[in-house]
């Protein structure tokens, strides 16, 4: 059925479905809290889509991505309040700073492989979080700080509804850019260096350059989402960039499906909604959450979306 679509649309099946879901979802959202959860899911999804470019496609793990998310958030909070910058300016500055930082650290650490890379990124995340926690004069310390309202061209995003559309749009943009990137020679180069690094180098791919490139891009996506988060959340505190948060991002990516842009979105949404949905189970929450995580990965080791897509394809096939 989908194969009847023109190729351009077919490439963006996921994007179209996502847009449709975003368009009709408000019908099911009954109050600001619902919006709040969905908005957070959307913001997480932006980070995870970017992270999956790095982990799922290029095969380079990062256990420190929450730091980039957090840096973006703090950049927006600090620049808009302490220094009175306009929101978009602060956001751009945050993305630029994170991009530069990611570039500087990427070269030395991306020589590392596997768990060693995981360790290094984790370490960088922890160091950044300690700095933000300790330099209280600038960051508000453990109590954190708030960003100014998100005002663009005189319009202030104040209601949850307005935020919903903003984040929805941002997510669609992220997904669109990422899908395009994956579907280009660059995307192929990323997957190739994941599959066989020496093989990739010998056919002409500067693997270091591509690893750095994708690390920087995914860090910038995280920073972008972090900036939005800062304006939406009441307070930015160091807990948003801790090690646990980084692990959560990775879990979302793997849970939804490695090397799957839509998988990232689905993973982020489910793993954001799940704890909220399970909150009512009180003491049983961790048992159920841990159980679901294990069960899913045991039975769908490739993650939700790729597994389901495979099942569907099997049905569609004659």
């Amino acid at each position: 059925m989908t194969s009847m679509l023109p190729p351009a649309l077919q490439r963006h099946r996921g994007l179209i479905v996502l847009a449709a879901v975003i368009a009709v979802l408000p019908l099911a959202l009954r109050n600001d809290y619902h919006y709040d959860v969905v908005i957070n899911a959307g913001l997480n999804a932006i980070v995870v889509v970017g992270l999956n470019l790095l982990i799922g496609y290029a095969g380079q793990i990062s256990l420190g991505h929450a730091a980039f998310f957090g840096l973006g958030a703090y950049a927006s909070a600090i620049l808009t309040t302490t220094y009175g910058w306009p929101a978009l300016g602060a956001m751009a500055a945050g993305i630029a700073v994170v991009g530069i930082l990611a570039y500087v650290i990427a070269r030395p650490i991306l020589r590392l492989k596997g768990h060693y890379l995981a360790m290094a990124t984790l370490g960088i995340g922890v160091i950044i979080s300690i700095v933000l926690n300790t330099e209280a004069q600038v960051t508000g310390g453990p109590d954190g700080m708030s960003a100014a309202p998100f005002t663009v061209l005189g319009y202030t995003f104040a209601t949850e509804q307005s935020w919903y559309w903003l984040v929805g749009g941002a997510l669609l943009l992220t997904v669109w850019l990422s899908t395009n990137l994956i579907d280009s020679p660059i995307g192929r180069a990323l997957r190739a260096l994941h599959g066989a690094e020496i093989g990739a180098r010998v056919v002409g791919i500067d693997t270091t350059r591509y690893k750095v490139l994708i690390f920087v891009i995914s860090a910038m996506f995280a920073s972008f989402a972090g900036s939005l988060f800062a304006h939406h959340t009441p307070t930015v505190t160091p807990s948003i960039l801790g090690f646990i948060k980084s692990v959560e991002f990775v879990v979302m990516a793997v849970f939804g499906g490695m090397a799957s842009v839509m998988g990232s979105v689905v993973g982020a949404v489910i793993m954001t909604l799940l704890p909220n949905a399970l909150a009512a189970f009180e003491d049983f929450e961790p048992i159920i959450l841990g159980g679901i995580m294990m069960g899913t990965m045991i039975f769908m080791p490739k993650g939700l979306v790729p597994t389901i897509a495979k099942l569907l394809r099997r049905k569609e096939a004659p």
Partner: protein
Amino acid sequence: MIESMIQFILAGLTSGAIYALVGLGFSIIYNASHVINFAQGEFIVIGGMSTVALLAAGVPLPLAIVLATLVTMLVGMALAKFAIQPAKDADVVALIIITIGASIFLRGVVQLVFGKDIHSLPAFSGETPLNLMGATLMPQSLWVMGISSALIVVIAWFFNATLAGKAMLATAYNALAARLMGVDTKWVLLSAFALSALLGAVGGIVVTPITFVSYESGIMLGLKGFSAAVLGGLGNGVGAVAGGLILGIVEALSAGYLSSAYKDAIAFIIILVVLVFRPNGLFGKKGIDRV
């Protein structure tokens, strides 16, 4: 100020020996499967908590220790059997997510079974500090260091000198070939988890008098243990211990001479610097991919 220097180092050795014990647990499972078991910290908690509960129920300490260790090993084997083995086609990241799920799950179970209180155990040989050139050390720290050293010797012997140990390594390097050699790889996985659960339990029991234990202790210990194992070189027992001790000593010296607020950050900076120069940790083997 040589006295305080010694004191800092003793403090570092105490924390470091604890990290080392956890790091060893990571190394064993890594050696058998190349999985990083993020539930390693939970083994420590289960060991410590069960001992506390058994003691409270009137079981004498030595028996409580044995029983708690068995309980933890059972949990470890159950984890291998029901969560790791069934996911046979999963790649390493998926397995890591499974162990993260397992750690959340086990934390929930511990919290339900034992509650959320923080517990301690009596020190094995009293609470009178030992004096060492003006610096002091709790006897329990010696227990931790002694047990770590003993375990590392046993583990090094197992992996270097026994066929069973080599079979475990072989399974991680190439499971297909190991099976073709007649290695029961399922059993290897099971025993690796049992072994590292044992290590976790023993670790949990000896460190509880120093650091206490609660259902959540596993997170921080797991993080430090992982750092120790990676710093030393994954899969290398000596490395894990060295990594743990270095981590502990760097933390203590930084707290003592530089800044207590930044001591953890300094420890991670040291790890980063080491990794930049030695991408496989201090004692890790260089990758041997030939083309």
